[in-house]
């Protein structure tokens, strides 16, 4: 829990400092900040939702992205060493937020017709609804949040496990086993290093994937038929 508070505090402080003195001609820090937000804005929000809806859902998507990113990155920060997202709470909450967001978007746009459109896709013969409707229901209203949460959680858990394995093995080989096994220790240390770098990539990627899927779900809820 402390790890998460640190991550939240980090985000808030960073953006507070970044946006406190916004200048017309940006300095390095401001440029970096604008680049990060611009990435979410253009690649995720505008990319999936278009300009108008992208602007509407930007706050929720940006919060999601930076929260996931910060909490993923805590997994490789020495001293914290545990990703905030590798415990079910955060992924689940964020998945629920995404769930609520896309259902809200759908109802706001199409009213009760949203559920009908989602569950009974147009252009399908009526007798196929017997098969299609349960599948649609399952995939749209149950599997989406579950997969969102589990994908993030498992990625982070697996990364954490890998790092733990590599570093504890290194420790074991170097100090407990000793002698000839020290060579293995070097190998496992190298793997640990590689996986640490890999984890940075995974952290960014998972934050992107999570946010982008949320945006796509919202977009799917917004279109009339799919």
């Amino acid at each position, binding site marked *: *829990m402390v790890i*998460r*508070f640190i*991550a*939240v505090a980090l*985000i*808030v402080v960073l*953006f*507070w400092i*970044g*946006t406190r003195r*916004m*200048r*017309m001609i940006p300095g390095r820090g401001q440029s970096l*900040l*604008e680049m990060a*937000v611009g990435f979410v804005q253009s690649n995720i929000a505008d990319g999936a939702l278009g300009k108008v809806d992208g602007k509407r859902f*930007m*706050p*929720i998507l*940006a*919060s*999601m992205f*930076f*929260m996931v990113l910060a909490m993923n990155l805590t997994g490789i920060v020495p001293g914290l060493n545990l990703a905030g997202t590798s*415990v*079910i*709470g*955060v992924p*689940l*909450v*964020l998945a629920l*937020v995404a769930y609520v967001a896309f259902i809200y978007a759908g109802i706001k746009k199409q009213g009760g017709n949203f559920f009908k459109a989602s569950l009974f896709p147009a252009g399908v013969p009526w007798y196929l609804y017997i098969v299609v409707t349960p599948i649609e229901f399952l995939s749209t209203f149950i599997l989406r949040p579950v997969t969102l949460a*589990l994908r993030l*959680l498992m990625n982070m*858990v697996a990364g954490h496990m890998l790092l733990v394995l590599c570093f504890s093995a290194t420790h074991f080989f170097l100090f407990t086993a000793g002698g000839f096994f020290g060579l293995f220790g070097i190998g496992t240390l190298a793997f640990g290093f590689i996986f640490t770098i890999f984890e940075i990539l995974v952290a960014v990627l998972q934050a992107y994937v999570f946010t982008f899927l949320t945006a796509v779900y919202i977009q799917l809820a917004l279109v009339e038929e799919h």
Partner: protein
Amino acid sequence: MLTAILAAATEGESPNPLIPEIYDIVWSLVCFAVILFFFWKKFLPALTKTLDARSEAIEGGIKKAEIAQAEAAEALEQYKTQLAEGRAEAAKIREQARLEGTAIVNELKEQATIEAARITVNAQATIEAERQAALVSLRTEVGSMAIDLASGVIGQSLSDDKKSSALVDQFLADLEASEKAKAKK
């Protein structure tokens, strides 16, 4: 054996990682709410404002530059027009000056001609007068000389003789008349 390890693992301490604890959910929600609040109310509006202001400034700058360019073009055009006007004016003045110069020269020429004519007339008048005077004096002289000569020949004075002087005058008049007739011819 595997099942035994699994059983031990689950029995031991780690609960199922997929079953969330209540505190976990609550605090995660709090985290998200905090982040969402700041992004929604503070960071994104600030960023948007700055970005809008920047694009506006850039557009304004472009517009300003365009205006300046247009002004410069206008000034150039004006300058060119003025230059052309100046050239035309200069040409006009030169032309006028040339005309005036010709007029002055002509006038002077005319004056000179008139003056020359006047001088010629004067000279002719003088000559005529002198000739007349010379003629008169010559006539008297010739008369007296002829009388003197005649008196010398005759041997007596004829000077106060009215008849002789009339004779002389008559002779001279005849001479003159014959001269004139000759000239006429």
